């Protein structure tokens, strides 16, 4: 049984009057984990506290079973990080930089590892160029290279797709998928690009105002927020919709073509109710199916409740 990626117990972090993490208690234990939320939600602060960049005002944090406060070096040995807006030494060549990183990480064959990492991120031909001459996309790829160097147990990527073109983004997702499936490396991603999260993550946390507002698999979250919304095709949508709206268990009714889109307040026996109402207003039911939304709709519903 692997240790959880991270465990937060009552963690609070304040910057002056701003509460970045608000009594956060959380266990993240997925293979590829994603953090989403608006700017200032606390995602980067959460990562920073995991890495010891900032110290919480209260609470304890364990990463891969190690206490961040007292065993930070053990944590760092097992983690590769691409921080937000990283600053790499511009005077180094990319390969020399990675060799130095490999030595700091205690990797036995630093040159070989550096060349492998450059190859994985598609920078092998530019490895001898100084970092200061890199484009922002190449810079981000280099950031990814230093994070995956030496195959750490956990890789944390804070906005990994920043400055990347569409091909670069695809490459990041490819690397995440291959490392997580083939090499059993675990990931924690923080990003605003929800498509990336939907594509690769098996656990998602939605943060807002320093709190974890929702968490679970993408499928669980979508079912939770859209499981009560149905598309019902009937012979007379207007009459049926009006009748539905009168009932106490319906939250909202909308029309989309020949379908009535209805959201129920709570879990009811949808099929039984639809048939009962159809008989009552004498319309023919042609189709009843749940409407499942996307992660960005889940995010909107979590952050802006009705």
């Amino acid at each position, binding site marked *: 049984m692997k240790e959880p990626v991270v465990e937060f117990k009552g963690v609070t972090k304040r*910057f002056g009057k701003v509460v970045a993490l608000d009594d956060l208690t959380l266990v993240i234990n997925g293979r590829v984990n994603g953090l989403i939320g608006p700017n200032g939600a606390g995602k*980067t*602060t959460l990562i*920073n506290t995991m*890495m*010891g*960049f*900032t*110290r919480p005002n209260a609470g304890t944090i364990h990463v891969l079973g190690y206490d961040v406060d007292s065993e*930070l*070096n053990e944590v*760092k*040995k097992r*983690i590769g*990080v691409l*921080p*937000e*807006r*990283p*600053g*790499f*030494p511009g*005077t*180094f060549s990319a390969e020399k930089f990675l060799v*130095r*990183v490999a*030595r*700091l*990480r*205690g990797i036995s064959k630093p040159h070989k590892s550096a060349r492998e990492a450059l190859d994985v991120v598609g920078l092998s031909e530019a490895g001898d160029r100084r970092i200061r001459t890199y484009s922002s996309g190449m810079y981000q790829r280099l950031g990814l290279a*230093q994070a995956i160097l030496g195959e750490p147990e956990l890789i944390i990527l804070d906005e990994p797709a920043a400055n990347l073109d569409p091909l670069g983004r695809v490459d990041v997702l490819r690397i995440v998928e291959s490392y997580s499936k083939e090499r059993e490396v675990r990931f924690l991603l923080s990003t605003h690009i929800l498509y990336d999260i939907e594509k690769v993550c098996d656990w998602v946390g939605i943060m807002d105002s320093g709190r974890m507002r929702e968490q679970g698999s993408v499928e669980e979250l979508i079912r939770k927020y859209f499981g009560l919304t149905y598309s019902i095709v009937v012979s007379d949508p207007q009459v049926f919709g009006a009748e539905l709206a009168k009932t106490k268990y319906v939250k909202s009714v909308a029309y989309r073509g020949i379908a009535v889109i209805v959201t129920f307040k709570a879990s009811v026996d949808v099929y039984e109710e639809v048939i009962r109402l159809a008989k009552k207003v004498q319309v023919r039911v042609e189709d009843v199916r749940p409407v499942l939304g996307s992660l960005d709709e889940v995010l909107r519903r979590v952050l802006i409740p009705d």
Partner: protein
Amino acid sequence: MTGKFRELIAWELEENWDFPVLELILAITIIQVLSLVTLARDDADLLANISRPLWSSMVFVFAISAAVVFGRSFGESIERRKLVVLLSYPVSRVQVFVAKFLSNFLATLCLFGSALFVEGILLYMFKPNVYWLMFGDTWIMEVGNAPFIWGLMFFTLLLVVFFASSLMTFLSLMVKRFGLSVLIFLIYLFGMEYWAGAVGNRVPQAYLSLSLGPESIVRYLTAWYVNTFTENYMGTGALTVGFFLTGFCYLLMGGLVFLLASLILSQRIDLD
């Protein structure tokens, strides 16, 4: 020295002492040294008068250059998130702090020390009446005393660089910005000069300055050396032991206090 610590020092030197910092400081130092050598020639009175402001500011060049180097190393690395990257690897904050401070301090000292050394050799070759004018008008008649005076100057240089480095490290960690920390450093430095100048040079507080403090160390210890180990006599003028100790303790103790404060701050600082 552990492998990681050695690697951190190599990292710091390669990153922080690259073009144009090294070349710029070297050029400024050479100009200073050459002006001093020109002064030392017997027939160079005219040049001496012209270039006097240049060489008299040498100690400030040392201090400000050291401040820029340490500001880049600490303030800029926080500002540009280089420190975050470095601390994401399995190294401790203490290791990074000590490696940064030590490597930059030794490199600065080597650079300026070499300049002083070259200056000493040139002066010896030209055999002038030896003026050690860098920290004031200490005029030694015997060339044989030169090595001791050179040693004192190097020691004083060490103190000046140490004080400036520690102060700047502290300021950089406090404000986390390179430009702002340099500005505060300059305001402090020249503010102290103005205040020390205002109280005159007849009270110990006047030696809490970079123009009088280092001079007091060289002049006082030179006089002590000449009077103790040679048959010549050298007066110290109005320079008392209190004045000497003020200048000496200001640089040494001030540097130590700022260094300790910086070390504590580096352990607690939030890299958000």
